[in-house]
C-alpha cells in the first residue's frame, strides 16, 4: 500500500521534475560554451546584458525605497489594509502585456509625468519593471518584518530604546533576510519580464560605463526574441547568459 502510493507519487512528481529540468538542460547544451563566450564578446550583447542587469536594479531600488515603508505599514496594520494588501498583489496576476499597456497609458506622453519620456525610454523601462516586480519586494519585506516577534521589540523598548533605535538595532537586523530575499526576487522578476517591456520600452538609450557614453541597447529578454529569426545561435547564447545570471543570483539567495 505504502509502496503503490509512493511509487505513483514518485513517477508523477519525477515527470514534473524532468519536465522542468529538461528544457533548461536543452537550452544550455544547444550550443558550445565556446560559442556562447564568443557571442558574449559582441559589444551589442554586452550592452544588452548590462541593461538587463542595470534596469532591473533601478526598478528594485525604486521598489525598495517605496516598498519597505509600505511593508512596515502593512505589518503594523491600518484601516483599509486588506484593500492595499490586495492591490499590492494585483500586478502578480495582471497579464504582462496588459501591465505594459497600463504603464504606458498611465505614464506615457501627456499623462502623469508630461516631461518624462516613457515610450521607448529608460524611465518607461524602469517604471514597467518596477510595476511588475514591486509586489515581490513588498511581500518579502513584509514577511521579514512579520517574522520579528513583537515581544522582542517590546523588550527593546522596555530596555530604553525608542521606536527608531528599536527599529535600527532589533527589527531591521532581524528582518534583513526577508528584505534581501524580497529585493532579489524583485530583481529577478524584473530581469525576467518580457511583455511589459515589449510594450513600453525595449530599445532604450542609457549611459554605458565601459564605453563612457550613452549608447542604444536592447533589454535582454526582448533581444532573445528579436534575434531568433536573425541569428538563432546568438539568441540562444544570450538566453544562456541571461539564465546564468539569474541562476547565480537565485542560488546565492537560497
Amino acid at each position, binding site marked *: 500500500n505504502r509502496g503503490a502510493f509512493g511509487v505513483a507519487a514518485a513517477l508523477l512528481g519525477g515527470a514534473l521534475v524532468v519536465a522542468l529540468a529538461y528544457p533548461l538542460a536543452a537550452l544550455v547544451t544547444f550550443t558550445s560554451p565556446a560559442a556562447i563566450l564568443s557571442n558574449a564578446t559582441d559589444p551589442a550583447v554586452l550592452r544588452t546584458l548590462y541593461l538587463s542587469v542595470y534596469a532591473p536594479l533601478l526598478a528594485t531600488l525604486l521598489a525598495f525605497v517605496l516598498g519597505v515603508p509600505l511593508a512596515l505599514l502593512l505589518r503594523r496594520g491600518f484601516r483599509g489594509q486588506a484593500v492595499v494588501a490586495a492591490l499590492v498583489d494585483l500586478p502578480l496576476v495582471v497579464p504582462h502585456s496588459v501591465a505594459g499597456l497600463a504603464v504606458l497609458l498611465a505614464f506615457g506622453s501627456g499623462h502623469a509625468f508630461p516631461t518624462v519620456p516613457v515610450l521607448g525610454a529608460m524611465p518607461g523601462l524602469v517604471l514597467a519593471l518596477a510595476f511588475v516586480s514591486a509586489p515581490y519586494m513588498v511581500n518579502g519585506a513584509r514577511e521579514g518584518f512579520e517574522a520579528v*516577534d513583537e515581544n*522582542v521589540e*517590546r*523588550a527593546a*523598548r*522596555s*530596555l530604553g530604546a525608542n521606536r527608531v533605535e528599536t527599529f535600527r538595532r532589533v527589527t531591521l537586523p532581524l528582518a534583513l533576510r526577508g528584505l534581501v530575499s524580497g529585493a532579489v526576487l524583485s530583481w529577478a522578476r524584473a530581469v525576467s519580464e518580457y511583455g511589459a517591456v515589449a510594450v513600453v520600452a525595449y530599445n532604450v538609450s542609457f549611459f554605458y560605463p565601459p564605453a563612457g557614453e550613452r549608447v542604444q541597447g536592447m533589454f535582454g529578454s526582448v533581444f532573445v526574441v528579436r534575434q531568433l529569426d536573425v541569428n538563432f545561435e546568438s539568441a540562444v547564447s544570450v538566453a544562456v547568459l541571461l539564465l546564468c545570471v539569474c541562476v547565480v543570483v537565485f542560488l546565492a539567495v537560497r
Partner: protein
Amino acid sequence: MTLDVDVTGTFTDADEAFTVTADLTVERGETLVVLGPSGSGKSLLLELVAGFHDADGHVRLDGVDLVDAPPEERGTGMVFQNYALFEHMTVAENVAFGARYHENPRDADDVLDALGVADLAERSPDTLSGGESQRVALARALAVRPDVFLLDEPLSALDAPTRDALRRVLLDVLDGETAVYVTHDRTTARALGDRVAVMHGGELQQVGTPDEIFERPGSAFVARFTGANVLTRDSLPDAVTARLPAGERVVVRPEHVTLDPASADAGESGVLSAAVERVVREDAAYRVTVALDDAGTRLDAFAAEPPGGERVSVSFAAGALHVPRDRAKPEEGEAEV
C-alpha cells in the same frame, strides 16, 4: 518605586471587544502577582502598564503619571514567557543592550555571573536551553536597574524541574524589587507574591496578601482557582454551618480538612462521615478525595498518611470554613473546565 495603576484598555480582535480594567498599587519593594486563567486579560494588563497600548486612567510611578509616556521612558524591565531574546546578538550583547540608555547600568558579565550563566556570554541565544534563555532574559532586564519589573509568565514555557530551579532564582532576584508578575499557577503566585491580584474576564476579582486570597477568597471563582473546595451550604450539616455568615457557598482549603479513621463520632456535631474516592501523592502530602455520605459532595483533603480504610471521618479545623462574599457575576467562569 511605588507603582499606582488605575487603567482601562479596550482590545478588539475579530470584531470582539475585550476590556481590561484594573486599579491597584504596588508598594516599593513589593512583588504583586496577577493570577488568572488564560484569556483573563492578565497579560494585557501588564502590557498596559508597560505602555504597549493606549490606555485611559493613570500609571503612576512614585506619583509621576506615565500613562502617556512611551515604553522606553517608563523604567520597566520586562521578562516574557517566550524569552524574547535578540537572536542576532550574543548573550553578552543581549544583556548589554540597554546599557547605553541608562546612566548607571550593571555590568553584563556581573549580572550573568550573579545568575549563574557567566559561561554563556559568547553563545548565541538559539543554542540555549529554556532555563538558560530565561536566565539571560532576566539578566538583560536586571542590567538596566529597572524601577519596576514586569514578568509575563516567565516560568510557563519551562519543564517542571527547570521551573522549580528558576522560581528560586526569581525569589532572590525580586527580593526588594518592585515587580508585577503574571501567572496562571497558584504555587508560583503563593511563592513569589507579597500580594496577589486575581483576574478574571478583564477585571480584578480580589487583591490581597496570599493568605487573604487563599484563606479568605472573595468569590467562588477565586476559591476554585486557588485550589480550595467550594461546597454548597446545604451539603454540610447545620451544626457545622450554623455560625457562618449568610451565603450559599462554603469554601474550605484541603489542608484544613482533617481525615480520621471512621469512628462512632460520625453523626456527632461537626464530624461528617465520608467514603474515600481517590488518593494521590503530591509533593508534601497525600491529596485524598472523599465523598460526603449525606450529600454526595466531593471534597479534597491533604493528609500526611493515606487513610487506612475506605471510610473516614471528616472534620474541619476551627475557622477553616469561609463564606465568600460573591461579587457581581457569581456564576460566570465557574463551569468546570
